[in-house]
């Protein structure tokens, strides 16, 4: 579904991605792990089109995305839930969700998607008329994911959904994401510092370091192989 080969990108001449090869199959869930500054967010931004590519190709469902502006990619079904939530603080939860289904066919499925989103994150149901800025951090993250789901994604990209959240709030966000992935067959990429949570909901993982893929493995291999776990998942295992 998504095929990336030999992808390179840089910020002001400083390379951020060096020759990335990366695939996601239809309906597959893939985690991207790695330290800060490894290029995880940059990789997602090249896919959603907000960072320019220096070289290499990104193909989505067979089509080269090279000349596609970001809003066309959303129309094609690539939906990026950015790091740091980026909800519209001065707009109501309802308006935030409406913006989620701003593009293309999603408009016509607004009601149906809204039902789904409120089933996944019931906490949002009582807050529809509140301003986004009045929500707690956890609720804002739920809103950010929900807003992405409203867009009828074919490929959903979640960038650090637990970032900056208290452990309990992060848990409830992950519970919602798990409910989503059970009821939908959307292909999903999860970038996450909490590697274990990410691996629980994903089938496969890439580990990035300094803009390169240093490991690609199934979640089982990562979770069961002690050496891999020690090297890439931190000391807790």
């Amino acid at each position, binding site marked *: 579904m998504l095929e990336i080969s030999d992808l390179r990108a840089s910020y002001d001449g400083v390379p951020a991605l060096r020759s990335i090869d990366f695939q996601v199959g239809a309906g597959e869930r893939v985690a991207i792990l790695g330290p800060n500054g490894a290029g995880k967010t940059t990789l997602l931004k090249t896919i959603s089109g907000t960072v320019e590519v220096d070289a290499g190709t990104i193909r989505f469902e067979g089509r080269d995305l090279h000349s596609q502006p970001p*809003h066309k990619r*959303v129309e094609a079904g690539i939906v990026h839930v*950015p790091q740091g939530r980026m909800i519209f*603080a001065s*707009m109501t939860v309802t308006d935030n969700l*409406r913006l989620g289904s701003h593009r293309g066919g999603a408009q016509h499925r607004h009601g149906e998607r809204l039902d789904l989103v409120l089933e996944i994150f019931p906490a949002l149901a009582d807050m529809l008329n509140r301003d986004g800025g009045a929500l707690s951090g956890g609720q804002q993250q739920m809103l950010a994911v929900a807003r992405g789901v409203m867009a009828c994604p074919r490929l959903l990209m979640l960038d650090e959904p637990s970032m900056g959240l208290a452990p309990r709030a992060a848990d409830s966000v992950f519970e919602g994401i798990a409910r989503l992935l059970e009821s939908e067959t959307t292909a999903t990429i999860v970038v996450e510092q909490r590697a274990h949570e990410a691996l629980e909901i994903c089938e496969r993982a890439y580990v990035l370091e300094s803009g390169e893929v240093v490991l690609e493995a199934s979640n089982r291999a990562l979770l069961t192989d002690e050496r891999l776990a020690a090297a890439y998942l931190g000391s807790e295992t």
Partner: protein
Amino acid sequence: MVEFLQFLVPGILIGGVYALLASGLGLIFGVMRVVNFAQADFMMLAMYLSWALFAGGVGLDPFLAVPAVFFVFLLLGMAVHWLFIRFVIGRRENHDAQVILTIGLGLIFQNLILIRYSSEPRVVAPSYANAGDFIGDIFISRVRLYAFLLSVLVAALVFLFLNRSATGRAIRAASENWEAATYMGVDIDRTNRIAFGVGVALTAVGGSALVTFQSITPFVGLRFVVVMFAAVVLGGLGSVRGAFVGGVLIGVIQSVSQVWTSAAVKNVWVFALFLLILYVRPNGLFGKAQRAI
């Protein structure tokens, strides 16, 4: 008391027009962080269009010409965005280019009109130009009343557009966080183009509301540019509602100050209040803490 009201009412009426002029400038700044120094010259062009439609044989009433003025300037604004503005949007380094570009556009507009129509003042005087009505002891000029009602109506329609339509929602989203709006599939170039067109059209309509009591020259914009910028800053940069309130406030102060002091110093009072408000609320009446872009 009657004397006070006799100054307050016209102040509110002209303030409504200032509010419309300023909300166009405020909308453009709020959505794409471009300070459009040519804004008052778009107003001047609109005044000439109203004059041409009225005096140039068609005999179209300037208030009835407003829908035409709106659409002409909506398209002109979108064209100017497409031709020039979009290339200087976004990066912080582009700030100087924005200033030079918009000042340059304003100068070109002024001089094209000067070449074509000379500097001779033009007036638009429909049959009811000097008519008015007494309400109690207060005299209300009819053209100023129409100008006020028109401004409030147009501002209300634009407010509805921004708050109720999908495009309006996308414009508000892009103005709050363009990157997040991009992830929602909002075409930022398109929302900027529409917002620039609407912003220019708002100020243009404000200009054509003025023509029945303000003579028109190629440099008439200079008389209003200070009021427009003061209203936008007073209301809070980036807030269209703030720009509107700021405009009304300035009209009232200019007018009411004439109860006590000469009309020649009316803008002194405006700037005294301007400084006072910014001292107490540095981000303006409705402004939030500034984001860096």
